[in-house]
């Protein structure tokens, strides 16, 4: 599973960070950083939740 964020859409509201802080982090500069771009299968449910909860539909998952 590979996480792709469309940074043109992302508005750094950190919803994803709240769900999976080990994968997504919004830093002091107010930009989103993907800490783990290829998380394991065990994280799929949480990543799916991030995809759904992102109000900008900025996160997609390949594979």
């Amino acid at each position, binding site marked *: 599973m590979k996480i792709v964020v469309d940074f043109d859409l992302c*508005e750094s*509201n950190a919803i994803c*960070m*709240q769900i999976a802080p080990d994968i997504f982090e919004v*830093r002091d500069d107010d930009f989103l950083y993907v800490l783990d771009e290829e998380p394991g299968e065990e994280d799929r449910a949480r990543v799916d939740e991030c995809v759904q*909860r992102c*109000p900008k*539909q900025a996160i997609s998952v390949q594979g």
Partner: protein
Amino acid sequence: MTRRSITIVGASLAGIRAAESLRRQGFEGPITLIGDELHAPYDRPPLSKQFLAGDWGTDRLALTQPDKLDDLDLDLRLGVRATSFDLPSRRLGLVDLEDQSTDELIVDGLLIATGARCRTLGGTEGLDGVFVLRSLDDSLAIRAAFLAGPARVVVVGAGFIGAEVAATARGLGLEVAMVESLPQPLSRVLGDEMGGVCAEVHREHGVDLRTGVGVEAIEGDGRVERVRLSDGSVIEADVVVVGIGVIPNAEWLEGSGLTIDNGVVCDATCLAAPGVTAAGDVARWPNERFGEVMRVEHWDNAVAQGAHAARRLLVEDSEAESFVPVPWFWSDQYDRKIQMAGRIGPDDEMRVVTGSLAERRFAAVYGRADRLVGVLGFNRPRHVMRYRMLIEEGASFSDAIAAEF
């Protein structure tokens, strides 16, 4: 609980996210999704922002991509309205809006996600140029009216939708007046001081904002010409957008055996009756985290509650979990991203914890009886989310003020 089939009424945000959640939970039975709009499920927030501005087309509004929708294997019935439900017999009455033919389903699991519609101003029926904004068609109509180059747009109500419409109209170079009956925009939620900040932001962007004054009448001969205010003043207008709140779409359930009172009344787990749940703008439930019965009209809540209400239909009563979110929403106005989490009341103690009101970039926390109950941010998304987590942890107000992010 093994459900044979599940019917979802309302094919928008809460309904579609509920359907996705059912499949993710492994539910393999038939899912019927009924919605009275003809468009494929679409997202509403852009309707007052990028879509209204003309920056986005309809392709950007889809709530799910067509292939993903196919994967859900739904019996999707668009242009069909639910007109009645009878709890004892579980009969759901339907009408096809195209040919007015009626139908009846006997439902097993039922999830109600019929959302809300706009409150309107009486006496404006049949007057061209007066709009509300809830649907894609509403947004298209307002966009067309904006493109026609009106001399002045009057927005009635400076709540979040009204404020966004005003901001978008200003962005298009239109002259805008906005009328608000409260002393300051949103002062009932944010208090007067923060309401005052919102007011200044509008004025700085050239909006003629009139506060503390009501609308007496919207007048014109076939087409709107002017808005008459309660202080006797008159504003000439050729487009009026009314944003004075919403009403939950629950009337069709009167007499169903469910409790209807400003929405569908649910228990703490989103259950309205055995095998019946509700989610999104239409649902009212006791949020145990805040000890308050609430109905939340925010995007994030529709997503989370849609998923929760779906799960609730699949589990035994003994395994059911309470729905205890910290409500969160955003509003984009001009170059400001306003975000709020928690439950803020005008009497709560407020403290700016980062940035300043003067620079219009800050986060402020709200406390009640030394408990952190809310956070408001202007262009401070990261802080809002951090404080939202503190609210979730049940932090005290003093701890929140001392926290460093």
